[in-house]
């Protein structure tokens, strides 16, 4: 009896301690984002004087006005959207094509191609920074949308995800379609692809997030101001391009805006993102 009660009060203590720790950590993780939003609506002076408060004393949209009316920010945003949308669509198509071929079609060289794919995945991306520029330059697509987009159109990890997914769905449906006389592409396009929706959504999420947040590739693929995207533009802003002095409301406003699309994607597909990142497509 007393034993049981002691256990309960012990559990209660542990539980409240757990909550206390979790809430403390959650505050540490969330505060930087809240403070960025708050500061972007502060005046320059207030941002410097009172960096901790979450409520602006005088609510100011000066930073956003400056960003949208008096800077290249809208252009960056537009470029980010163009690149991200094209890259995402390209990856969905090319990754699933390749993933389907590698999982379902038998052809000589398949094993070798797959081994090559695995080897390529092991090369750290930063090592490719300069090499990529060399090729882009050599091909004559430096400083163009083609140079920004084409190198990102397929990715080894995405092909992997698609291949794994196709392997998990039964062959029977395809066989039925094939018996009905559909060609390989028809089978792929109208039978298999619609069934692959969960995996495609995973690719969309990864491709969108990846190309929206990408920086190093855009640095080596272009230099003209017209082709700046958000990451490149905000990075330049951060190292002092638009501003004399700290200009924190402006920079944080830019950071907040560029986070919004990814944040929306994250909250919409929250469950799936949590699963996709843990290395398996569970469906």
């Amino acid at each position, binding site marked *: 009896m007393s034993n049981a009660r002691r256990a309960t009060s012990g559990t209660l203590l542990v539980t409240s301690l757990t909550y206390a720790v979790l809430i403390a950590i959650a505050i540490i993780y969330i505060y930087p984002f809240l*403070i960025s939003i708050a500061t972007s609506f502060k005046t320059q002076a207030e941002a410097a004087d009172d960096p901790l408060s979450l409520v602006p004393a005088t609510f100011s949209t000066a930073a956003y006005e400056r960003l949208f009316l008096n800077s290249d920010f809208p252009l960056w945003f537009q470029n980010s959207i163009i690149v991200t949308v094209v890259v995402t669509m390209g990856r969905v198509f090319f990754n699933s094509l390749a993933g389907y071929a590698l999982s379902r079609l038998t052809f000589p060289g*398949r094993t070798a191609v797959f081994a090559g794919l695995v080897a390529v995945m092991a090369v750290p991306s930063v090592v490719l920074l300069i090499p990529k520029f060399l*090729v882009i330059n050599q091909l004559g697509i430096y400083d163009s949308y083609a140079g920004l987009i084409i190198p990102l159109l397929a990715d080894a990890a995405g092909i992997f995800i698609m291949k794994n997914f196709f392997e998990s769905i039964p062959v029977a449906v395809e066989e039925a379609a094939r018996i009905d006389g559909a060609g390989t592409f028809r089978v792929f396009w109208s039978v298999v692809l619609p069934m692959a929706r969960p995996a495609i959504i995973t690719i969309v999420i990864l491709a969108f997030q990846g190309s929206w947040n990408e920086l190093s590739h855009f640095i080596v693929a272009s230099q003209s101001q017209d082709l700046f995207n958000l990451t490149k533009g905000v990075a330049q802003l951060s190292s002092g391009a638009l501003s004399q002095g700290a200009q*924190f409301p402006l920079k944080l406003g830019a950071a907040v805006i560029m986070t919004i699309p990814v944040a929306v994607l994250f909250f919409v597909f929250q469950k799936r993102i949590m699963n996709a990142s843990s290395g398996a497509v569970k469906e």
Partner: protein
Amino acid sequence: MSTPATPPGTPGGGALPTRRELRRRELRRRGRRRAGVNRGQTGAGWLFITPMLVILGLFLVLPIFMALWVSLSDWTGRGSPFAATTNYVGGENYAELLTGGGLAERDFGTSIRNNLYYVLIVVPVQTIISLLLAVLVNQRLLKARGFFRTAFYFPSVTSSVAITVVFLFLFSASGAVNRAVAYLGVNGPNWINDPRGLLHIILGAFGVDSPPGALQEAPFLGVSWWNWLAGPSVTMTIYIIMAIFTTSGTFMLLYLAALQGISGDIQEATLVDGANAWQRLWLVTVPMLRPTTFTVITLGLIGTWQVFDQIYTGTRGSPSKTTLTPAYLSYETSFNSQQWGQGAAIAFILFAIIVVLTILQRIVLRESDVVPKRKRFRPTGEGGRSSVVPVGPPVVPVKPPAGGAA
């Protein structure tokens, strides 16, 4: 065997091809290797993977060979690296970096030192934090689990540029962090512009301000012993904290997935055996999570040697080159100093470092992994009753491998 009437790959509609196709499938089932059977798929197969082969081949495989050539050449960035004006210089670029004795060697050595401390702190700390977050969030009775997971994971999905902007603000001289520590009566440093190494600061507290004679020599990569032992600079600490902040969420998810694979039976059995929560964590959960820990450390090592975005967005190597990393140095050497050969050579050395470390880590961690998972629990059952008792020795080396460095 061949059916000339049917074009390979795409039998048209209609009754006849259907039957043919049927027969084909039948044949395929009987023996895949028979000639001609897969001819249709061969064409389609290669067609399907062509876009991927072109893209990955052009922008992943070809660059490696091109960069290898550039790293062995004196290309200055003008014209094509294959033009006649570019000369083969052998290992000159590598020699300049590794034993040249000049600025290039010193900068490279400094960047290696900076990144080394970054790795030494970030990898163990992020591994431990992500494990603890996962264990905390995984509790079945916890309310608002979803909220906590989201909160911890969210920094991982945002762009490193945006996070860097935020952190530069938080750590500015009169910024949020310094305001917060001021409440505790501590005078925060000028984070953004403080090249002092953490270990030097600690030594300074004991009155050691200048290097003893023995440490003034520069035996390796042009950096003196004293400077090798500087520790990460105060400014570098911002990036260290930021890396832990942004990646622990990702690794928490890996651990969460693994935790869900651990059966409740084992947890219950240890509960029955009277193990407390702490013992359960260290003696049961952590050993069982070994494969995940292995993955987390591997990914951590690979990721932390490639710091680029943050440095580019933030301090770009300053102050006093204490935030210079090999990745950023490689970029700067190529694009700003036009020393393309050297830049490419840095990239390859970095590649080698990552490969060697990954292999090394595999060997070290595998050694203590000889005991199969099952055997870690010695069934001490008699008759029908059996309970599991964690065996002592194999568990000990299982503690986060680099935990001591934290």
